[in-house]
């Protein structure tokens, strides 16, 4: 690789990494994720999902239905009014009333002193725990297990040919790569578009292009953009992976993590596609950036560019079908939608390896074409300082 390409790449990387705005944009999302995680963690701590009570909690139950056995210590021989009065007088903290028609009405009542603005008081569940515990103590162990539902049903899917059919498990890693690419597209598009606009806006193009060829300048800039994009993605993804690892025993995460099945070929192909797609996307953005002369003009292109790339997501259901229809086929091989289209089909296992390789080739070829167009467009428009609209084929005269 030419040394001038590396000089451009180094300059662009260092100057971006020194900018507070780069780090603000990079750290904003992880910080938001962290804050949301922290809030949910604190909320989980403060909101008791399982009702608890200790020996200091004074409980009284009026059991007019006779549903509880004599072994339950909280049953009192008072009527409802007296029980409510006990709460008001502070004799008990929680009072439960089980009416005589409990079997028909399926309703019990719960009285306690309000603590002000209570949203998540679930002390009413204590009565359910007491009832369940009492009922379980009166039946044998097996019936108790059935009654309490304290057992697990293990899901074992079988494909028709008798092999494991863990399609979801196999899709997790390729889907994750697809999500990372989506973030890459959304995060980096604006910088990609603006990268060559600066030279034009600041009228540096002529000084630059008499020191270095436009090809080396553009390639150097694209390398820098990819490295910076990688930095942003790592800053975003690594904390998430650490969080997942730290919570790997979490009741919701553990089954998903346990399901993950790594298919090396599929993952390798996904990564190759990721790199090719990133280069292609960068090339397209730089090409568009080369056609316009101001940041304002460039920014109006970022929305359509992102929409074109993520278009297959609107047809997610179709991509999940085993037999791809015409729309899916089109989106799989149309250059702008191919990256995410291919990633989706690879994740859902609805594309063969030769088809996938053909898709990657299309993206690679388009990436090369996009870069060549970007170089040409920059060379031709670099010294159109006063134009407000793309002027690919025209040149300014003195």
């Amino acid at each position, binding site marked *: 690789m030419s040394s001038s390409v590396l000089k451009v790449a180094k300059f662009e990387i260092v100057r971006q990494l020194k900018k507070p705005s780069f780090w603000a944009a990079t750290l904003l999302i992880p910080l938001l994720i962290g804050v949301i995680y922290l809030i949910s963690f604190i909320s989980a701590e403060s909101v008791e999902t399982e009702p608890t009570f200790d020996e200091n909690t004074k409980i009284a139950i009026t059991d007019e239905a006779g549903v509880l056995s004599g072994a339950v210590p909280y049953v009192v021989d008072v009527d409802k009014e007296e029980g409510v009065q006990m709460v008001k007088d502070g004799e008990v903290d929680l009072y439960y009333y089980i009416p005589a028609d409990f079997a028909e009405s399926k309703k019990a009542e719960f009285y306690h002193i309000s603590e002000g603005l209570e949203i998540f008081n679930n002390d009413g569940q204590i009565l359910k725990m007491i009832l369940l515990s009492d009922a379980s103590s009166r039946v044998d162990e097996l019936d108790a297990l059935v009654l309490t539902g304290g057992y697990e049903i293990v899901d074992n899917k079988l494909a028709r040919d008798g092999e494991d059919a863990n399609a979801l498990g196999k899709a997790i890693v390729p889907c994750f790569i697809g999500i990372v690419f989506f973030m890459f597209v959304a995060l980096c598009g604006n910088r990609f578009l603006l990268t060559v606009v600066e030279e034009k806006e600041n009228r540096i193009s002529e000084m630059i292009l008499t020191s270095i060829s436009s090809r080396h300048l553009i390639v150097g800039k694209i390398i820098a953009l990819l490295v910076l994009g990688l930095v942003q993605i790592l800053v975003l993804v690594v904390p998430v992976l650490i969080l997942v690892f730290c919570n790997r025993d979490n009741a919701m995460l553990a089954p998903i993590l346990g399901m993950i099945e790594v298919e090396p070929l599929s993952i390798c192909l996904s990564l190759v596609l990721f790199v090719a797609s990133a280069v292609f996307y960068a090339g397209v953005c730089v090409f568009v950036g080369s056609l316009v002369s101001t940041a304002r003009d460039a920014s109006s292109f970022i929305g359509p560019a992102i929409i074109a790339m993520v278009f297959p997501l609107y047809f997610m259901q179709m991509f999940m079908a085993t037999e791809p229809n015409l729309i899916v086929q089109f989106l799989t091989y149309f250059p702008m939608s191919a990256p995410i289209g291919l990633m989706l089909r690879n994740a859902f296992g609805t594309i063969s390896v030769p088809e996938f390789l053909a898709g990657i080739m299309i993206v690679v070829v388009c990436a090369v074409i996009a870069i060549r167009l970007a170089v040409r467009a920059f060379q031709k428009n670099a010294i159109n300082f006063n134009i407000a609209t793309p002027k690919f084929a025209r040149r300014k005269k*003195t």
Partner: protein
Amino acid sequence: MVEVNNFRMAFDGKVVVRDLSFEVRKGEIFGLLGANGSGKTTTVRALLGLYQASGGELLVDGQKYNPESGKVTVGYLPEERGLYRKESVIDTMVYFGELKGVKDPLKWSQKYLKRVGLEDKAKEKVEKLSGGQQQKIQLGITIMNGPKLLILDEPTKGFDPMNRKLLMEIIEELHAKGTSIIMITHYMDEVERLCDRALLLKDGVARAYGTIDEIRREFGGKSLDEIFVEVYGEDYEQ
């Protein structure tokens, strides 16, 4: 040093330079003259490969100019000039120095900044500098690779008297070292004082070409200012 043969340039079918031929010899200061729109900047841009010529050939040291060939070093101060506004002065100079293949760009930049009284501004962002200070930086970037060919497009445009004096000193220094210099300017007094030879363009066609004395003789001993007015006539007023 520079050979332009039958150079022709058209934009969207409109010819702006036609069959232009001239040469710039090694070590001379060459004036490229003409009113706005006469084709001076277009010729220089085509010479440096910024524009693709519609016809003819433009050679620097016997070949088409390629900034990375390393065969001939060129310094170009364009009419439209700027810098990376958000970068520090020293980072900007070092970057251009690296691109131009300067051996120790940091050392060269520090020495130059000291010479032009900007050593305390090295770490400042370019946008914090005054217009005159930025001009000094642009000039430094233009000459930092010790160019064999220096092209200055309206170099004194917008320069304050101090920077103009600095520029003249630098031109003289480089000229003394054998650098060939092409100067695009509207100031005829500068041309008469500095240039060995000149080319006067009107509507992309050469109207006068040769040494300053030859041109003056051709127009009956008139000054360059008078020659300019004669060639452009009423157009010049417009």
